[in-house]
């Protein structure tokens, strides 16, 4: 496995690592992008939730999510 990625969050199976650094780098780049995208989607989801939930319930929702 590429030493640069040994401490990365996702452990790449040996068979994938054997394909070379290009494959391993691709995996970690895409995982990083997916993490960022998921974080962004979650932020958007909270905003949309607060705009959809009727006003009387918003306080309860904010309390649960800690917003």
């Amino acid at each position, binding site marked *: 496995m590429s030493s640069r990625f040994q401490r990365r969050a996702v*452990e790449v199976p040996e068979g994938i690592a054997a394909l070379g650094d290009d494959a391993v780098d691709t995996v970690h780049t895409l995982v990083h992008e997916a993490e960022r995208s998921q974080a962004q989607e979650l932020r958007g989801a909270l905003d949309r939730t607060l705009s959809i*939930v009727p006003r009387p319930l918003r306080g309860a929702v904010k309390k649960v*999510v800690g917003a």
Partner: protein
Amino acid sequence: MIRDLEREAEIERLARVLGTDTDRLTPLAEAEPEDLRALSDAIADHLHERHAGAFEKAIAVAGKLPSAMTAKLAQHAMGPTLSARAATLLEPKQAADLAKRLPPLFLADVAVHLDLRRAGPLIDGIPPEVMAETGAELARREEWVVLGTFVGHVDREVLAELLDAFDAEALLRAGFFVDEPQRFAAIIGSLSDARLDELLATAAAQDLWPQAFVMFGHLGPRHAARVIEALDRMDDDARATLDGELEGELRARASV
């Protein structure tokens, strides 16, 4: 050919988990399907754990709101990808109630992103008619990998209803991706002779014998014998498209 189809399916699965296009996975094009599956599972676990707190909060919010409102939020605030990841934390009863309130089009979107290793237990509680409608939508979209994975998880009684929604091509293409080989007996067993004849005619007409024999290769003697009988009913031209070696293997299986 079978390994190529498996590899293609796993590349597609990995792209879905990562939310990217298969074009970006070109450096992994030569990977073994088993390695690609292991990588997909590891990444799905990582993405779930990376924001586990947020998904838990989403489920906690759902618990405070009426089901109709939760369904609305799933569809319009969370969207299919986040809903699929959060759904794995639902109680089966909650999941069943929500599924009834969501349109098949959205459920099909969710199904594409659902990790059935985690969500498998939720499937049993979903009403058969909802499963069938969602399955039909997935078949319409030619989501064979997703359908095949679902077939491996649905209750045996629901399976027959789900299969009714599939035509022969869908059965062959999705059947190829069923992970649990013991399911093939239930699939073939639930088909009438007419449906089995249609399955073989489609395999011949569309060159789908490899997909058919992935299914047939796991049958016990009783079901293999039914397939042999159906092969014997085929017309000569259609029958001629079948590889004699594959047929020989099936005949051997039927005579065990």
